[in-house]
């Protein structure tokens, strides 16, 4: 049976096996996959967890948008879409679950709360260490510095930051009115 080409909401395309095989042959090799981005984020401060799913999602978003794009790397696009709490990637969510299932990361604490913790495991460290060492030193430093800086903001802080600088991702947000939009250079806000 021939499967028609389909496209999901986040522009992910679905192929039949044969079509997928052909597409893969055409694709160039990527330097970093979404799983690598996620593992690197946790590896950058491996002794400290990222607290909360929203925080993890926004940190991957900022790492992709503000840091990785500045470097000459071929990176898998996590395909972020506007969602209930700003930018969301179904790929990142799925990859996080897969990494936990495979034992590369540990997810502890009550699910979907700010106390839920995402921690890289020894297996995860072994998995990403080589790739991490091969990264440009400036990039490594930048990821380490930003991981701490983003953690310092807390969930509310990182949401406010993302909503301010990426307003295109807040159209579906349930909490978009919580953060006031302040415009400078046009008189009073």
């Amino acid at each position, binding site marked *: 049976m021939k499967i028609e080409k389909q496209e999901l909401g986040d522009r992910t395309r679905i192929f039949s096996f044969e079509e997928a095989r052909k597409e893969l042959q055409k694709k160039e090799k990527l330097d970093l996959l979404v799983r690598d981005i996620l593992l690197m984020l946790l590896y950058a401060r491996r002794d400290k967890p990222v607290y909360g799913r929203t925080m993890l999602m926004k940190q991957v978003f900022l790492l992709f948008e503000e840091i990785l794009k500045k470097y000459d790397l071929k990176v898998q696009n996590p395909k972020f879409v506007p969602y209930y709490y700003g930018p969301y990637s179904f790929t990142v969510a799925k990859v996080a679950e897969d990494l936990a299932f495979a034992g590369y990361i540990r997810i502890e604490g009550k699910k979907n709360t700010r106390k839920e913790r995402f921690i890289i495991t020894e297996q995860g460290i072994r998995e990403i260490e080589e790739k991490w060492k091969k990264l440009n030193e400036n990039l490594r430093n930048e990821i380490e510095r930003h991981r701490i800086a983003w953690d*310092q*903001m807390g969930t509310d*802080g990182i949401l406010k*930051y993302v909503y301010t600088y990426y307003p295109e991702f807040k159209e579906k947000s349930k909490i978009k009115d919580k953060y006031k939009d302040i415009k*400078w*250079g046009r008189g*009073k*806000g």
Partner: protein
Amino acid sequence: MGKGKRMKVSVENVDEKSGLYSTRTLRIKVKGKTIKTPYRAITHQELNAKNNIPEDVLLHSDFSVIHRKFTLKEIREKVLGSNKYLSSLIKFLEEYRIRMQHSEFVLPFLQPYESALITDFDKEKYIRLIVRAQIEAGFKYVSIPWLRLPAREFLAIIKKHKNDLGGSYQIIPVIDIKEEPKELEPIFRYVKEVSTTGELNFFGIIHRPVREALASYDLAWEILKEADLCIIMLDVKRYEEDLNDISNIHLNEFVLGDVTSLETIRIFGKKKKKDSETSTQKISRRKKPIEEKLRIFDQEELRVPTLREFMRSSNWIDEISKHFDRSKEIREILENYKEAQGDKEKTKVLNAISRVHEFLASEREFEASREFISNNETEDYIREKATLLRALRSVKGQGHLGL
């Protein structure tokens, strides 16, 4: 934590000149790294300032301080009697502990306002509940607030909590330097003695202007200058108007304290109209220009002048924005600073920029001064900072550097 097994505090160098300055460097060894003091801690309010811009620059500090103050009403009606309030307090502490997780030391202080200590309340119960809240929130360092108890009673409480909590926790006793020396002396001697066992590594002191507590400052320095104990100066006011707007946190570096933490301010609703105020005063208060309201830290001078004064330098916008990751956006805000006049939200953003800029610039300055102190060259450092020199002469006596 195991009674200081994971950390060791030792005095590296004491540098003092009678009548002019008293300072020292400590080495704090923890988890294979060494932290040197004097050091500026980051407070939970400075962390919030970053979010109010918003800006994602890293505010690095090995010491994070959560300093919450309570009114008498809050103590009586909430802390001592409301499960809901204590639960929200634990949540508040927990949230900041998580946000500050990358600091080596996250230190909570839950201190009543000075005005709350005039009237009596069940002080033992207050300490018991406050200690419990800190433990519930996951802290390993637990502060014992200053409640103006007689030294004998306060020491009994400290000893009790130290024994009850055991090796997994470490207590941080807090005192107010404004108390009379005779009340403070037994406490200073006790903390010095216990610090030798490694059971006590931190000692909190609520800051006061030197002239309000001259004898107590002198006593604290004499007893504690050689003690392997890290003194945390708390609630340090941002600047001292009487001393040419000197940054108190930098002045204090040469008076007492190894780690200093800025005053935290709580805002309690709208200010009531003062009956004594004339209508002209009311108008002038309301219409105070933003250039007068906003203050900016001057790293060169170690002062916190008004924006109007700071703006006299032609490159003031560069001077501030260079510290930020989003310097382009910060420049745009500063170029349009006048829009904040009468606009609360924009004023909040400008204040936040000023606070974050101060933290970043001041932290760099601490790095520089630490080296001078460590090398017994404190006098050279002070000689370079005219406002600091004048302020120290004023607060420490009449020392001269031959200038």
